[in-house]
């Protein structure tokens, strides 16, 4: 059965390592829904969080293939356990002064924030799991979304 999996990959912070990882996915026909990279708790190591879709056999192969890369130190299937996952989105929404109070209402309900206001638009920042961000976008869509930028998921297991 195909479903979404979230995997964390601890890698050496080397030039080309993102290319190695993403190239592996492309070449072997695995899907990447999102990929984020940044520093980890240890200097010299980065953590990638990859959201991918596939059945359990595919996930097993992905983990094993990742381990074949010399720069990969550790692979953890985060979605196998309770986890916290967060994504950030910036949404620039069309907002004439008359519509602003209504939009502010949506923003507050989602505990999002308005981080910029332009002549005919507002920029909304929302943080949460993927579903929350999807919902926020759907609610703002009727006003007219001018620009949208999502970071992709970062995540950790609980406890």
């Amino acid at each position, binding site marked *: 059965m195909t479903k979404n999996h979230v995997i964390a990959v601890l*890698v050496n912070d080397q030039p*080309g390592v993102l*290319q190695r990882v993403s190239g592996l996915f492309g070449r072997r026909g695995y899907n990447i829904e999102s990929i984020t990279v940044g520093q980890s708790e240890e200097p010299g190591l980065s953590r990638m969080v990859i959201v991918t879709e596939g059945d359990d056999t595919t996930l097993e*192969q992905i983990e094993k293939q990742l*381990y074949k890369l010399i720069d990969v*130190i550790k692979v953890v299937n985060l979605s196998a356990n309770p986890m916290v996952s967060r994504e950030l989105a910036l949404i620039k929404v069309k907002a004439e002064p008359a519509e602003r109070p209504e939009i502010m209402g949506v923003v507050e309900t989602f505990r999002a924030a308005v981080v910029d206001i332009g002549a005919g638009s507002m920029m909304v920042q929302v943080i949460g799991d993927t579903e929350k961000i999807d919902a926020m976008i759907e609610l703002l869509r009727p006003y007219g979304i001018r620009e949208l930028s999502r970071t992709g998921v970062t995540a950790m297991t609980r406890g």
Partner: protein
Amino acid sequence: MSAQIPAVRSTEQLREKWMKPEVISGSEILLRSLLLEGVECVFGYPGGAVLYIYDAMYGFDDFHHLLTRHEQGAIHAADGYARASGKVGVCIATSGPGATNTVTGIATAYMDSVPLVVITGNVATSLIGTDAFQEADITGITMPITKHSYLVRDAEDLPRIIHEAFHIANTGRKGPVLIDIPKDVSAQKVRFEPEHSIDLRGYHPTVVPNRLQLDKLVAAISEAERPVILAGGGVIYSGGHEGLLEFATRSGIPITTTLLGLGAFPSGHDLWMGMPGMHGTYTANQAIQQSDLLISIGARFDDRVTGRLDGFAPHAKIVHIDIDPAEIGKNVKTDIPIVGDVKTVLEMLNPMVGYSSKADAWRAQISRWKQEKPFKYKDSEDVLKPQWVIEMLNDTTHGEAIVTTDVGQHQMWTAQYYKFNQPRSFITSGGLGTMGFGFPAAIGAQMAHPDRLVISINGDGGMQMCAQELAICAINKIPVKIVVINNQVLGMVRQWQELIYDNRYSHIDLAGSPDFVKLAEAYGVKGLRATSKEEAERAWQEALDNDGPVLVEFVVHKGENVYPMVTQGSTIDQMLMGDCE
């Protein structure tokens, strides 16, 4: 017979001479580091970006550098050296076109898990990314076909990188490692510190298998009524052939060896069933399909072996022994996975294994199949048959030569009719199926074994893909016996067109091929031609008596097909038997 190849000094002497910490160039560090890794022989081709490296080689004779005539020749030769010796093969090429010319050879080595260190030059670090003259992103290009790669940014890192590269190439699942060295780095002067320990946090191949899994295998063997061993190249690479012989004889389990596994098990042995798969034996394929326990050892279930996957070994419990955990479950669902080095696994397993006593009827069935359906061809007194030529090569060399092949029908006939009994005696491009591989690989194999007879068997098509390396044989007196099986066509393609494309022979006619005898002679290599059995025997004997390189062209029957054959989309027991019927 012996190649005119000068002896290399002992590593001890070299260490003493070169181990001094001192300020030297990146190029000198490279050469010294190669020596410290025990490198005896390097194949390469110079150019602008590696000129500092070649300058450092001037007058240097602590390893041999063979100047091939094409980078493809260099990398296949390094590959042949590695396969024949078990050591790491080394190749040097310049940036841009030099580097990209090695791509086919890198992919060939990657598919067959051959340890190589490929050193490429690159433009100076300040020019990288500017589309400078002869710039190519070779680390990027080769990422999917290398086990690992390095772009060196500081000469200080060179000793560590080279040490790591050799370690990675020749441990775990072996494979090619690329080291890309920008020109300024090869010129940069730094203090050379020879000693380096290896600290690769993300790289710890599992050598010792899980004991409980071995217990499961032992239990499965005692239950099995129709067990089969499927052994592959991994047995040879790990040095596990003696363990394999012991395992098979202790357990009495019939065994088949894949193309790359030929030589891992003595071909004359009662338990041996021949090669499986597309052009394998009737016996091996039937045995796999009817088995109730299939023990794969160092083989990866390539589609040329399995045929249609969903009908492969339908009744068998599958055991998969492999050093690479990612191979397990990749193509075939595994019941007992065993991750570990094949040699180590077999050493631990053998004392635990008993005779599979429930399999007596099975062994009898297999003997009957072997009797009833051996490889067969219709011989002729008018034309030379390629199978007959291979049999003659086998008989006259008592199966003791190192044989390399190119890719095509001649490759399959060699696999079928030459009887391999020792590991590392059959060298062929299995996974990638690279035409142009066979002849340069033979040069490398001969460099690894100057005193052994090395035969390179080629088609008339593939011979023309790296024929320029005849020069290397002539100049260095490398006594490879080059066989050209000339059927005037791209034979294997012709066979597919006949059997699958309705006799529509599109673009397979090799009219315009050179006179191979004259071609050899033009390079200073002795050339001989045979068109009948009598001529063939005489020419071949003359080649064997000659202590230099000789090319022998055997003009053979054009329409010959390789049988048996499993066509694509069939299960492996659905075989076209052809002349083997």
